[in-house]
């Protein structure tokens, strides 16, 4: 905490020297990306030398890389020089009480049934939260400390646990992985760090809320979760963003490491601003998420509910290295208006007797385009590997699209891999039945969609599941009739 305040004080003090453009309550680095930008971010955060070196190496990689062209959507034009790479809030709070918050935002929270404290957090009322790039505080820290659990902002971890960060940073998602991962490695501003010691079962759901608050600042969060032997952790990530007219890019990196017998459960509910009806505005969500089951019998499970963003482009992956390790991926992706989702997973079976399960539910409405792209790879040593994949698409309206691109590669003759996919629409008979029972069409659609997604929603922690169900209903409002 104190270090954060120190950083903030430094930022204030050095303002003139580095030519800041000052907003009312934001510190923003001028647009542009160069080695100097990186040196600036690194010095701002008081980082050790090795981390700066690591960032610079990633930046040199980034400069050599090109934007990919295989995606199933038209890539918006990017000017990496037109983004500001650092924004830090000077103040911790935006409002003193909920009364000052935009009532429309509150109405949405109300519909989602978010608890009051969380509402405050989301709206930026005096509760500590990840607020733009510098994470100001993290909840329940003291309780966790007693168990030896480290849950703090990335910047703090760099200062207080440099040995852990150094050991694991970039081991799952190397900076050479893809252009956005390289960019993130070069300019990442903050994020979360979690370490669960041996044999500890984390007693609460760890959560953090990200908000993109300053216009034109791409957010480059970095999350690193390490579950040591026989530990367990469930991590939640939920996102909201207020209305913006200009596209914002979010290129985060999430790395999960599960040691022997450890289990990590990572859940995401993403409802960033999807752009207006014509697809104007909205967030670009280009996130690299990957976990490794390093030890035997470890398990990593990804659950995601993606309803926001104008473009969602991510493939949370699992590397099943340990024998008998397990990987899971549960996803619901909703696209409407001009939204695009190109998402799925990659599962690499390396160890023996590894198992994976993929359940993906895509819902397209309006002009939305939804793609499932997945890879299941069984290596020559992954004897008796087992995979089951199911990806279903639901189409609402005649202008939307659903696409499936599964890649299935097996090099082992004892492996069993199954994939199935279906595409359908909501049955008129189903709607009719519900109408008959006095449920209007909109509610009926929400009900059917929730039933359709149940397999995935069931995987979410309870409070989140309730929120996600309501979110689905809200997302699909106005898409029928």
């Amino acid at each position, binding site marked *: 905490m104190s270090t954060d305040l120190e950083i903030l004080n430094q930022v204030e003090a050095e303002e003139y020297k580095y030519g800041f453009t000052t907003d009312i309550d934001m510190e923003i680095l001028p647009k542009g990306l160069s080695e100097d930008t990186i040196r600036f971010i690194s010095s701002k955060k008081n980082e050790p030398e090795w981390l700066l070196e690591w960032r610079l190496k990633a930046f040199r990689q980034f400069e050599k890389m090109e934007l990919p062209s*295989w995606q199933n959507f038209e890539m918006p034009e990017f000017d990496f020089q037109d983004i500001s790479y650092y924004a830090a809030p000077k103040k911790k709070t935006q409002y003193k009480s909920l009364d000052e918050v935009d009532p429309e935002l509150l109405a949405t929270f109300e519909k989602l049934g978010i608890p009051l404290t969380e509402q405050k957090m989301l709206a930026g009322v005096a509760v500590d939260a990840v607020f733009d790039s510098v994470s100001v505080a993290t909840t329940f820290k003291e309780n966790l400390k007693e168990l030896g659990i480290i849950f703090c902002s990335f910047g703090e971890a760099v200062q207080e646990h440099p040995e852990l960060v150094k050991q694991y940073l970039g081991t799952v998602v190397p900076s050479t992985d893809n252009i956005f991962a390289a960019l993130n490695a070069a300019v990442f501003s903050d994020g979360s760090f979690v370490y669960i010691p041996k044999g500890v079962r984390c007693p609460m759901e760890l959560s953090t809320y990200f908000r993109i608050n300053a216009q034109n600042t791409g957010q480059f969060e970095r999350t690193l979760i390490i579950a040591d032997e026989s530990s367990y952790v469930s991590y939640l990530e939920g996102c909201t963003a207020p209305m913006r007219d200009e596209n914002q890019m979010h290129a985060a990196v999430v790395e999960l490491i599960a040691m022997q017998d450890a289990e990590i459960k990572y859940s995401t509910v993403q409802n960033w601003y999807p752009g207006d009806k014509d697809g104007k505005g909205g967030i670009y969500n280009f996130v690299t998420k990957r976990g490794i089951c390093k030890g035997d019998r470890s398990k990593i499970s990804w659950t995601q509910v993606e309803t926001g963003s104008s473009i969602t482009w991510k493939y949370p992956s699992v590397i099943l290295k340990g024998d008998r390790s397990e990987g899971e991926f549960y996803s619901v992706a909703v696209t409407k208006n001009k939204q695009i989702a190109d998402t799925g997973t990659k599962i690499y079976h390396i160890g023996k007797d590894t198992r994976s399960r993929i359940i993906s539910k895509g819902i397209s409405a309006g002009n939305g385009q939804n793609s499932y792209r997945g890879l299941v790879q*069984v290596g*020559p040593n992954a004897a008796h590997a087992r995979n089951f994949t199911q990806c279903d*698409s639901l*189409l*609402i*309206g*005649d*202008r*939307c*699209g*659903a*696409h*499936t*691109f*599964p*890649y*299935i*590669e*097996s*090099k*082992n*003759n*004892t*492996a*069993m*891999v*199954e*994939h*199935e*996919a*279906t*595409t*359908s*629409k909501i049955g008129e008979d189903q709607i009719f039945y519900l109408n008959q029972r006095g449920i209007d069409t909109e509610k009926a659609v929400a009900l059917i969609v929730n039933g359709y997604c149940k397999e995935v929603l069931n995987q979410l922690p309870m409070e989140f599941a309730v929120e996600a169900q309501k979110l689905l209903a809200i997302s699909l409002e106005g898409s029928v009739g």
Partner: protein
Amino acid sequence: MNTQITSSLYDQCIATYNTEQKEGTLAAIRKQAFTSFQKNGFPSTKVEDWKYTNLKPFIQDNLQLVYGETSTALTKEIIESALIPGLDAYIVVLVNGQLQKTLSHQINEKGFTLLPILEATELPAFQQHFGKYTDVTKHHLTAVNTALFKDGLFVHLTKSQVVEKPIHIIHVSTAKTDFFTQPRYLYVVEENARLKVVETYITTTQVKAVVNQLTEVFVGKSANFQQYNIQTGDANAHFIQHTEVFQETTSVYNNYKFSMPGISFLRNNLHIALDGEHIESHMYGLYLSGGAQLVDNHTIVDHRKPNCQSNEHYKGVMQDASTGVFNGKIFVQEDAQKTNAFQQNNNLILGDKASVNSKPQLEIFADDVKCSHGSTIGQFNNEALFYLKTRGIGDEKAKTLLVQAFAFDVTDKIPDESIQDFVNGLIEEGLK
């Protein structure tokens, strides 16, 4: 990104084209294809459609472009050995794509024409359909074929005519040096006509044969066309077969493809465009591979209009160190409401070093559709194997039985009994 393979064969193709005459009906089409080939060359594995299949070892420098060379050694006995027992069919023999009249049957059916492709260029039916269904800018090897082909067949059946007996085309590959050929076929089956074609392959040479075949098929309104393709051969054979099918309203097209061990490299592209309502298309494939074989099946089914039905079922059995590749795409365009599309790919990996890459794809732009696909990779059910053994059935026989049972979904769909028996025989042989 390097999307081309560097090979002197590329230069050879360019040089050959440049020495050719550039006049006549085909000049414009050839020129377009040539320009596209000149630009794109042979695809490397960086091209998504060739991700799992590296052409490099097959596009070698010492290959010669060969046209219509006939072997004197080709006798009636060799042809007879290639017949399907019990199948009453018209026999057509092609050597490197060139029609051998002396070894082929004379077909006197009403409305039926079968000609070497270059002799048909002035016919209206040829001009109406030739080159209309293939996009040479998209598919690298169709461009080579279009620019350079000289051999092949034109088969035409006019309106409301029926040829009851199947046409059995025996493709013979033969030459003195390692070669690269470009046979070209065009089938035009007009309104209400019905035709059945069976294709088999033999190689009689000891040299390497790379055959880049392109087939275009037009199935007119309410017509019915059945195409069987039984691919057998030895390690010298390398086949790239591209088939483009265009279907009109209420037509039916069935494609049966059987790939057997022996052939070093097989790449099948089957593209079907359903350009009308109430069309039915069925694709049945079985690939049984052995040795270091590479079998690659790519299919595209393009639903353009409402109320059509397509059904695809491909099954693979990989032995030894062979590799199987499957990529099936189903497109359902915005207009194609009430489409019913199904696609399934099942693989059985038997060999320790065998591998399978499967990529079933759906791209759907219409909402009132029923589309599904499935893909599995697995192996024998050990319990079933054990059960058979307890009944006194030997290991080898039991495995054959299980593979035949696995293949049954596909082989059972063959309506002609003699072809079915022939294929079952090939499976048994292929497992030895």
